[in-house]
């Protein structure tokens, strides 16, 4: 067995750890792995090019950009913000947990592309989450604001990943079924998908609890400052 191509992994780890430009690190790692595996330069170039064009689908997200750009220019984020600010019952935790549940259910039905970071998180969920967080702490600082937005993005990821595996006719389940059948184990897709259900429930519970926890930490951060300001006013 040729272990030299593993150096490609080492290049990625060192490059990312030293905060070099990720795009450059990734391509250098690919070239190194290819050369160490004994590929000729023309073969390596063809491999790179072939893989690159056959993965164009991951960049389809840019199709959302004109819509989102135009709406942002016309005040979409400001509107999402003031809409949430007016809904008194809607807390940060309720907003994010509801999104998590809906996202998981949609992915379980195979509706994966209907939501996502460019489609729903940047234009809608993130500004709404910010507005909901501002209802807890009107003087939200930039660091807390970033944490709220990051949590919104994380919620989308968790909802997508741990719903998708329960869906029968797409991606993961078919990959598992196909792989096992290549190795002589014939299974019905349903018997694979059913075992993803406990994890889907666990993912919802764990992440929902973390969202509630985050909201409590925002509340706790605010209290001392409010108390201090009240103190200042008293003096």
């Amino acid at each position, binding site marked *: *067995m040729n*272990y030299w191509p593993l150096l*490609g992994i080492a290049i990625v780890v060192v490059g*990312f750890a030293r905060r070099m*430009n990720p*795009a*450059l690190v*990734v*391509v250098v790692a*690919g070239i190194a*792995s290819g050369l160490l*595996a004994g590929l000729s330069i*023309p073969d390596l*170039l*063809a*491999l*790179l*090019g*072939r*893989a*690159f*064009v056959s993965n*164009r*689908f991951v*960049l*389809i*997200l*840019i*199709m959302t950009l*004109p*819509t989102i*750009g135009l*709406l*942002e*220019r*016309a005040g*979409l984020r400001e*509107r999402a913000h003031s809409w949430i600010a007016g809904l008194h019952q809607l807390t940060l935790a309720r907003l994010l947990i509801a999104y998590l549940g809906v996202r998981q259910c949609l992915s379980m039905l195979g*509706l*994966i*592309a*209907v939501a996502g*970071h460019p489609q729903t998180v*940047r234009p809608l969920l*993130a500004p709404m989450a910010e507005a909901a967080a501002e209802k807890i702490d009107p003087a939200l600082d930039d660091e807390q604001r970033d944490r709220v937005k*990051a*949590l*919104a*993005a994380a919620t989308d990821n968790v909802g997508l990943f741990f719903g998708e*595996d329960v869906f029968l006719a797409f991606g*993961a389940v078919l990959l598992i079924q196909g792989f096992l059948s290549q*190795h002589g184990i014939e*299974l019905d897709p349903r018997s694979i998908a*059913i*075992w*993803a259900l406990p*994890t889907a429930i*666990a*993912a919802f519970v*764990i992440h929902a609890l973390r969202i509630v926890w985050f909201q409590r930490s925002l509340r706790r951060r605010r209290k001392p400052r409010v108390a201090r300001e009240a103190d200042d006013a008293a003096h």
Partner: protein
Amino acid sequence: MLRIEYVYWACGLLLLAAGAFELRDRRYAQAAFWTILAVCFFGGDAVSAADKAGNALPAQATGIAVIVLAAIAGTGLLLRRPADDGDAPLRRASAQRLGNRLFLPALAIPIVTLILVLLTPYAHVGDFALIDARQSTLVALGTACVIAAGAAMLLTRASVATAFGESTRLLDSLSWAALLPMLLATLGAVFAATGVGEAVAHLVSAAIPTQSRDACVFAYGIGMALFTIIMGNAFAAFPVMTAGIGLPLLVGQHGAHAAVVGSLGMLCGYCGTLLTPMAANFNVVPAALLELRDPNGVIRAQWPTAVLLLATNLVLLDWLAFR
């Protein structure tokens, strides 16, 4: 028929427009970057077709283009434009005027996608299908984006040029992060072709005490997560780890249920996806899209969920696979 190629051409058009806007602003590195990428999108199908027919030259030229794109990104010339927040009062006034109608084009993207996906099996004239069923989700998403862009232009009374100007602004703020998912998928293909996966599985299976059932469960689950962290993709890790550890040790030697091993193995991999910058489209691109100052901010927000869930998956695997 609406085919995925048309969506790629639309992406190419958008990238070409970005290149033209950057050239006008004398931002030459950006102009070259988006234009080269646009050419890859327009020529992609010709490259694949020539490659299948035995002519590797276009694929090799694309390989050189990939290296040039990475080199441009690596020079650090892709500086973002200084953020201009001067029109904030204008935006607030427009938000006031348009109200909740502003949500409609944004919501049209998911809703039209959903409708088109559901309609795909029925949308045909005779034997002629209107939407290519093999890629229906991506075709539906692309079409929904075009419809939503039209609606947004009507609503905000903007021209096509303004729409492309706005997409250029957002591409600029994404910068090289926009390209990273494609580059990582390419790296995954190189790793697969050079036997990196087999080498890792070989090393892991040599290091574990195979008689212990718990050690095998642990090695498989953690191995899936770790290898996914390296590859950035659970789908790439799954065949390697399952062929190396899951099937021979868990199913073969210890008699585990193959369905449970497959399902929970993949889910352990997904926990790894939440932890790695290699999964750029889930972790790095959103950080750029949301303009977080920490490029690892999204990973920071989700690692506790990932670790707790990985532990849960290991317990579930140990319990459910050996009933």
